[in-house]
């Protein structure tokens, strides 16, 4: 094995890892605020990719410019799903029920996408998908760089909102303690709805770059969601920083394994690491120790 391939894998891992970090942050935001696990996140990424596909193929809109349309669209999809289904879930077993409900939503979207786009595998196209540039003697397609910048910009915006604005403070308050947040006058219901919308909206950006770097169809969503779930469990459910680090770590590790060993083993490695980490730290790397919920 040569070292340039290894450096390539590391670079690739960091670049694509940021994208997974973005998608996993959406998932963590939803879980942290609402205690809901959104299994539909994987298929929503694919929905985002297909929306970009339609805009670029049928309307000739550039992939990045199309985000102006797809991000608000998926934000609305998130709001509708939250209002229609999530708001109706009741304790007890709310989290388990949310998994089943979002799974059902995922199946419906998968069926719909299969009907509209057929099961043929497609990939998004643009000049920056086909062309590469040279850095440290390595050829990197432009889309990886652009995708990285997009993910960093969106994550930056998300973090700025969470940690520097009043609304962000109310989100974090709701993540810490819903009852206490409600007592100090935060409209937890509204915060939940918007968080779900935001958590889903990031899949538009994630889906666009995913669709440009991978060939996909609706059933690709199973691979995506299992990776994303692994990332958030590994990072510690509900920990935003944990999701970020776990995403970069896991994707980089997967890429390195693909180079060192075989691409076949890159996804299983994901899960083996998860199994090992959970045996040592059941709450994940950055998760809080599970406490008794009355």
């Amino acid at each position, binding site marked *: 094995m040569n070292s340039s391939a290894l450096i390539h894998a590391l670079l690739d891992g960091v670049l694509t890892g940021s994208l997974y970090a973005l998608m996993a942050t959406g998932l963590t935001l939803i879980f942290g605020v609402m*205690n809901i*696990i959104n*299994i539909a996140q994987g298929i929503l990424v694919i929905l985002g990719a297909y929306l970009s596909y339609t805009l670029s193929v049928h309307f000739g809109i550039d992939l990045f410019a199309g985000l102006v349309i797809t991000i608000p669209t998926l934000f609305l999809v998130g709001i509708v799903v939250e209002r229609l*289904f999530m708001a*109706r*879930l*009741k304790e007890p*077993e709310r*989290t*388990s*029920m949310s*998994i*089943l*409900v979002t*799974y*059902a*939503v*995922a*199946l*419906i979207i*998968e*069926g*719909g996408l*299969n*009907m509209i786009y057929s099961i043929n595998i497609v990939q998004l196209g643009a000049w920056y998908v086909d062309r590469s540039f040279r850095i440290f003697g390595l050829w990197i397609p432009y889309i990886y760089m652009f995708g990285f910048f997009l993910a960093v910009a969106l994550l930056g915006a998300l973090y700025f909102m969470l940690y520097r604005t009043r609304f962000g403070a109310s989100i974090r308050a709701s993540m810490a303690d819903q009852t206490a947040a409600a007592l100090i006058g935060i409209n937890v219901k509204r915060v939940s709805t918007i968080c779900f919308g935001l958590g889903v909206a990031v899949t538009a950006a994630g889906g666009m770059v995913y669709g440009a770097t991978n060939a996909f169809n609706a059933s690709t969503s*199973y*691979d995506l*969601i*299992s990776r994303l*779930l*692994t990332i*958030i*469990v590994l990072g510690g*459910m509900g920990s935003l920083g944990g999701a970020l680090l776990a995403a970069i770590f896991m994707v980089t590790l997967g890429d390195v394994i693909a180079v060192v060993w075989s691409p*076949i*083993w890159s*996804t*299983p490695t994901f*899960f*083996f690491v*998860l*199994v090992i980490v*959970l*045996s040592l730290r*059941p*709450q994940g790397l950055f998760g809080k120790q*599970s406490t*008794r919920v009355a």
Partner: protein
Amino acid sequence: MSKLKPSLWTLALVVFAIFPLIVTNPTFTTIAVFTLLFMACTTSWNMFSGYSGYVSLGSAIFYGCGAYTMALVSTHAHMAGGEAQFWLVPLAGLVAMVVAIPVGAVALRVRRHTFVVITIALFFVFQLLAINFSFTGGAAGISLPLIPWLFNYYNLPFYYVALGLVIFATLLSAGVRRSRFGLQLLAIRDDEDRALGLGVRVTAVKLTGFTMSAFTIGMAGALYAMFIGQIYPQFVFDPTFDITVALMAFFGGFGTLLGPLLGGLILESSQQYLTLTFTNGSLYLILFGVLFLLVILFMPQGIVVRVSQLWAQRNRRRETPLTPDAVAAMGVGH
């Protein structure tokens, strides 16, 4: 919890026992075999997940392991296709149990909702392994020995073995429900910390329940492999199997004895019939998803509980309305 009289259970058993003798059309008996397999799996799933509240979305791990045990042993041992293969069914169940021990040991380290997520992740590990290992035949799957039974007779042995699995799973589930062990599982569902405080060895109880439920699911997987005669990793390690089994249990009645049986009976038979009628798989996914949503959102306790509630309401309405006079007459007034 709704109770069915012993006479009704017996009647149901008799109906199931004579069904393939009356309905001989192979299309319908094939549907019946699949339906029985799902009834057995759902009952077995419910014996752990329904009683303990730990919803597992990884039951296809055991189904797949059972199917691969049947396929690998019968091909490597050069068995002639036929009755002898049925002896591998309990073996496949045991293999599934052995697999369930490490899977459960990892997944059960965490509390409920993380458990669900980990069972999904572990399921994908198994699917990937089945595709990537060479001894499993990879994505091309495995062909089992051909069974030289006549077309009209073929379904009959499978039907009765599957019925046997349903009876076994039901008796086991009923036995667990009445035992001290079953009460411990229910205590975990109600309040795990309190159960722990009262001296229930929660980890051991959960792992035992999880492993026990793998047994029947593994046997069903083996029977499925033998029935179909050809297995592929993506069809025996199928994510929709995980979710279908859970849906059937929720539809019938999560944590009840009768619920999973009814859920499997109604949903699998109608699903098989629908797939025969509409061959469009995508439309089927949408219908299935919509049905699932309706069940979870509007009947979260399942049809068994809902129907018995309605029945009780109706009976109450037929009784004398509670006027102040009637209350006084009953002597409960002051």
